[in-house]
């Protein structure tokens, strides 16, 4: 296990390096410039801007400079759009926010989703099952770009319980609506995966054997069925967690949380090369980290799985 962890962390480095190179090349392939606008700057002005941000150099020199700066100084460079601040500043400002509401959403999605799915599976084809499915689908059918404005209309305009947006340093009234809007669709998916997986497990031979031995159903479920049930759910939770803690454009832009999620889209659209690189690398690091954790958890849940 220890060796596995060491190996995996060693493989992280080439992974991130390849990610850097691919994203860098992709960015140069995309049409458009970070400095273009409705009022196109004259060529001389454009040349000055390109010189300032190093875009006048051949691409391999740019890439070399860029990558070495990250490795040796952990410096992602200046943002091309937010000209007064660096990419590091943007990440520093946005990431903690996203991490907080993302973690809460993850918690809520699991604490509601997994039990819901389990109950539905245990009471398969009874009204409890149908209700649980109904609830979980109901949560998923409203896309969050519809749910978010509705939440604001209800809780801000009508009831006047919660502020309609802003982060306010993470005060709980500001966190509630983003968490609801972000967690519901994940919750629905987790519930459905849990239900499907548990049904399969409950029908398998070893559970039947356990039941035949006369073990109480609580014991059967928590001792024997739970672990294998969670395996496929776990595969989903890795990317889901990454998805939640890196936030979402809809949540950030409708609830104005100031989180990092919106930049994944906006940096792409504004061709803010350094910002896009910065958050891509960040996302890559988190993704690799969580797939490692998920793999370790596999081995914990199913001792037969060799790492």
């Amino acid at each position, binding site marked *: 296990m220890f060796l596995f962890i060491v190996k995996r962390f060693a493989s992280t480095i080439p992974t991130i390096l390849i990610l850097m190179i691919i994203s860098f090349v992709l960015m140069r392939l995309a049409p*458009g410039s970070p400095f273009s606008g*409705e009022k196109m700057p*004259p060529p001389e*002005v454009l040349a000055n801007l390109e010189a300032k941000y190093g875009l006048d150099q051949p691409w391999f020199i740019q890439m070399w400079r860029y990558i070495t700066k990250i490795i040796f100084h952990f410096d992602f460079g200046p943002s091309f759009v*937010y000209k007064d601040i660096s990419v590091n500043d943007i990440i520093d400002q946005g990431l903690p926010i996203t991490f907080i509401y993302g973690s809460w959403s993850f918690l809520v999605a699991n604490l509601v989703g997994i039990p819901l799915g389990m109950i539905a599976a245990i009471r398969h084809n009874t009204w409890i099952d149908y209700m649980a499915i109904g609830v979980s689908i109901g949560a998923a059918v409203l896309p969050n770009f519809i749910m978010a404005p509705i939440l604001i209309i209800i809780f*801000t305009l009508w009831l006047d319980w919660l502020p309609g947006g802003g982060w306010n340093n993470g005060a709980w009234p500001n966190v509630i609506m983003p968490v609801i809007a972000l967690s519901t669709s994940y919750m629905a998916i987790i519930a459905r995966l849990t239900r499907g997986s548990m049904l399969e497990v409950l029908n398998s031979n070893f559970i039947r054997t356990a039941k035949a031995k006369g073990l109480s159903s609580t014991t059967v479920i928590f001792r024997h069925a739970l672990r294998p049930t969670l395996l496929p759910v776990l595969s989903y939770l890795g990317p889901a967690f990454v998805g939640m803690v890196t936030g979402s454009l809809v949540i950030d832009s*409708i609830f104005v949380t100031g989180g990092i999620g919106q930049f994944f889209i906006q940096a792409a659209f504004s061709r803010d090369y350094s910002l896009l690189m910065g958050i891509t690398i960040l996302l890559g690091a988190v993704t690799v980290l969580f797939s490692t954790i998920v793999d370790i958890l596999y081995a914990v849940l199913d001792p037969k799985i060799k790492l």
Partner: protein
Amino acid sequence: MTILNKKFTKAALVAVLAGATALTAFSASAAKHPVTGEELAADQTYTYRMLDGIPSLDPQIVEDVTGSEIIRDLFEGLLNQDAKGNLVPGVAMSWEPSEGNTVWTFKLRDNAKWSNGDSVTANDFVYAWRRAVDPKTASPYSWYMDIMSITNGADIIAGKKQPSELGVEAVDDYTFKVTLTKALPYFADMTAHSTTFPTHQATVEKFGEKWTQPENMVGNGAYKLTEWKIKETTTRVRSESYWNNDASILEKVVTLVIPDENVALTRYKAGEMDRTAVPAGQYPELLKELPKETLKFPRLCTYYYVFNVSDSAPEAFKNVDVRYALSYALDRNIIVEKVTKGGQIPAYTFTPAATAGFEVPTVDYGTWTQSERDAKAVKLLDGAGFNKENPLKFTLLYNTSEGHKKIATVAAQLWKSKLGAEVTLANQEWKTFLETRNNQNFEIARSGWCGDYNEASTFLDLFDSKHGNNDGLYASDAYDAEVRAASSSSNAAAHYKKAEEILAADMPLIPVYHYTGVVMLKETLKGYPIENVMLKTYSRNMYKVAK
């Protein structure tokens, strides 16, 4: 429990506030506006919505309108504009052109202070203006200094001369002199723009790019920055060091970034803001619902469709009759009355009528009725060889946006139903769109242009054959001669009129409408300058009255 808690907090808050109000009651209740005598609200906080986070708060770097709005509070330039758009003294008390409008001398007040206590002198302006053209600053707006025609400006931007050679000079601490390459009668007006605002050299040099952060920034405006969270909010509070601080009434100005206009309206209605935009197409409804809060005013902006008339253009568009036909058949009234619905003004010329010193020429087709235009259009197109059997086919390019989509959809249907043209709609995300349009890879493309200063050249220069934003590559010697002559002429209006007539005759663009601004503004907020077509707002001129 949560509700209880919330209520409890609220009650506590009310109690505290009540106590505080009681303490200051004698001053708060007595506060009256010094001129109008209106009773002022106790809470002088003005909150408004921004569409997006601002890219920069550096006066020399800022490009966007919302950023400039904040910068006008944090910094003060030579001249300001009043509520009607007239020039009024800023740091400069008086200004005077000499040598036929080629040399401009500004006398600065001696009591203007930076927020760290330093005096604002002519040297600060010299520094800032050199900084604006310095290639090292790489200001995306340095071209503004170029069109101000300051001596050597263009060469410095191009790296051919040193910034120190710019035609600006601090004659003494309080006299600032600018030398121009050509006579520019409207030069003074251009100094109300944020690119020309002073910056504090020591601060910029000490902190580099980070000098605009709240903890570092030194400004000379009526307000100072206390908070800036890129995608969330900014806060500015009144500055004690501002020379005319006594006259400011608003204590605090807060901006909230809310990209979604409908959510912004919800929050406006919930009382979280004093100002927000009217969501597209909702002006008539909101006017009915909240007549006193829904405002409309003209802007110096034009929405238009540009034809590709370059060598790469489709053969059909090289025929002026086809361009006439498409322009005539585009029913502007339907677009402004049924689609945009914000009281926009149908456009038949490029320059908006609200532009100072601009006399709108009567172009023929602007005076006809729509059915006359339609009849003419069918005939012209028929003459060009296009009809129901051989329909005109082309692609209309626009950038992704709900508003542009609606207008393009209606335009396509108008052309289809009236002329039988087969129009393909193509939308592209912004940067790809710009690249496509700039490289003439289009047939007809959506465009919009807003004036940088209140003079017709800010519009008409655009169709100069040498202009970088002349995306259709329209080239006419007669037109170039008119706009170039206008800039130093004593009778510019006549040249502008002529230039517009040439545009109407050549039709390289279809003017669609002139913009209006439509905003929701709480009744308690006074002094928002809707009569200023450049919408140059200054928070120190605004105030909140008691309900």
